[in-house]
């Protein structure tokens, strides 16, 4: 039987970490992720986990320590936000290229500057091509469930990649919600033991990691890394299926909300999906065929599946909680449009940058987006592709 509780997103993630009982946690505090290592260190102090907790002096050191520990064969977890993630940058690529499945809870926060502690996705979006798997969660429940699944995904022999489990700062991290927790022993059984094929502590099979890799071999290792990311899609679905059998909670690459007959749809990531679902319900009451796609897995990007989900729509708005400053559109928008290109060409797709620096996203904002889509369907005309909503004009 599941355990009913009331927890904030950060508490839920810390509880997931306690249940996973990683060998090493190395972390440095930064708002709004601070509570994750804070709660977890109390589990360490109370002897509830066997984890070696390493309180490092920076996020660069946190990720470096995680890489070292994982290379030594330890299951390793950390958490960060915004500039903390930015300071890990160099090491993110090293974790991914060394094929070390470090787990990182990213509590999404606006990347400075100007300095801002509130939620948007500029931190993790900037790391979208670092070679990490990225999974996003709308609610506390999803943040909890995703981290537990992430362990299995990253460590799978066909994958061996680090995973970021992302959820919105404050909105999800600090708001207390009802949650169904899995029993400790069931989580333990689900995640199993970490058994890497190669690690530095294996004295019977000594290995070296991080050797100089020049023109003769670097490209092959990058090609192999790209293949691991492709393999991840299948593994994510297999793990989700097993998780469904354990908990009854269904996860896919993304969630489709009222998409069966939708003519207009919004594509969005994380907590705003909750607000948008409410708007979809209201529009449906008025007979508008509105739907929603909430991205769960952003890396690997589910190209074919997104195309299938959107192919029957006439107009789609992609909402980005991060700008790309490329004068072309936000990161999710460019990924969705390049997925559709040549596969489902008739669909009109527009982009909205929203909620930067924690700017509130109201139902009226989202309704305005759906109304613009209705206009596009009616007139067949797109007045503007790359738009902002919620900014003072």
């Amino acid at each position, binding site marked *: 039987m599941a355990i009913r509780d009331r927890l904030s997103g950060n508490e839920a993630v810390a509880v997931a970490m306690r249940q996973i009982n990683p060998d090493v946690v190395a972390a440095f505090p930064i708002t709004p992720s601070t509570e994750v290592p804070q709660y977890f260190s109390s589990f360490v102090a109370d002897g509830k986990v066997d984890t070696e907790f390493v309180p490092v002096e920076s996020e660069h050191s946190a990720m470096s320590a995680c890489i070292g520990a994982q290379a030594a064969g330890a299951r390793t977890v950390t958490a960060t936000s915004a500039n903390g993630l930015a300071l890990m940058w160099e090491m993110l690529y090293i974790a991914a*290229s*060394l*094929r*070390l499945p470090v787990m990182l809870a990213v509590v999404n926060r606006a990347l400075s500057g100007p300095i801002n502690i509130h939620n948007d996705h500029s931190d993790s979006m900037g790391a979208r091509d670092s070679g990490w798997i990225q999974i996003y969660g709308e609610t506390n429940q999803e943040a909890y469930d995703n981290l537990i699944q992430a362990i299995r995904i990253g460590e799978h022999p066909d994958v*061996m990649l680090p995973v970021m489990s992302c959820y919105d700062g404050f909105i999800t991290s600090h708001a207390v919600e009802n949650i169904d927790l899995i029993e400790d022993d069931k989580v333990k059984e689900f995640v199993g033991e970490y058994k890497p*094929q*190669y690690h530095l502590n294996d004295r019977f*099979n*000594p*290995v*070296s*990691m*991080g*050797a100089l*890799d020049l023109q*003769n*071999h*670097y*490209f*092959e*290792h990058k*090609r*192999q*890394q790209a*293949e691991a990311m492709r393999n991840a899609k299948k593994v994510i679905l297999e793990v989700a299926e097993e998780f469904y059998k354990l908990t009854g909670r269904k996860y896919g690459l993304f969630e489709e909300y009222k998409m069966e007959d939708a003519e207009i749809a919004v594509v969005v990531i994380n907590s705003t999906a909750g607000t948008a679902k409410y708007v979809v319900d209201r529009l449906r009451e008025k007979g508008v065929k509105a739907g929603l796609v909430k991205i769960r897995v952003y890396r690997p990007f589910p190209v074919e599946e997104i195309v299938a989900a959107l192919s029957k729509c006439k107009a789609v708005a992609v909402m980005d909680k991060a700008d790309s400053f490329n004068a072309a559109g936000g990161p999710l928008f460019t990924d969705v449009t390049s997925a559709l290109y040549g596969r489902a060409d008739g669909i009109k797709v527009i982009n909205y940058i929203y909620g930067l620096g924690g700017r509130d996203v109201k139902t009226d904002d989202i309704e305005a987006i759906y109304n613009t889509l209705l206009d596009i369907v009616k007139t067949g005309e797109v007045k503007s592709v790359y738009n902002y909503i919620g900014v003072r004009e």
Partner: protein
Amino acid sequence: MSKVKVERKKVITSETTWKETTPGGIIIDPGNAEDFLTGDWRSMRPVWNQEKCKQCLLCFPVCPDSSIIVDEDGKMLGIDYDHCKGCGVCAEVCPFKSIDYVEEE
């Protein structure tokens, strides 16, 4: 240094494909740098004159490429031209001028 060839779990060459190579470039055969012949980088060549050599072994510890071949009894046997990069340190250090340092043909 003895020159015993070690059995490799996986021989990595410039023909090895991405499907065959080790994940993330992990070295699963310790010391397999030996398989990479660096001798052809050489533009200058140390030439050992056995008759002048006093077996003082001062050349051995200074070679940056472990290319002074010494047997199990601690006897200098010559130079490993498969790996010697021709830096000339051994010739410089030899107190008995037993190593000539000449241009590579």
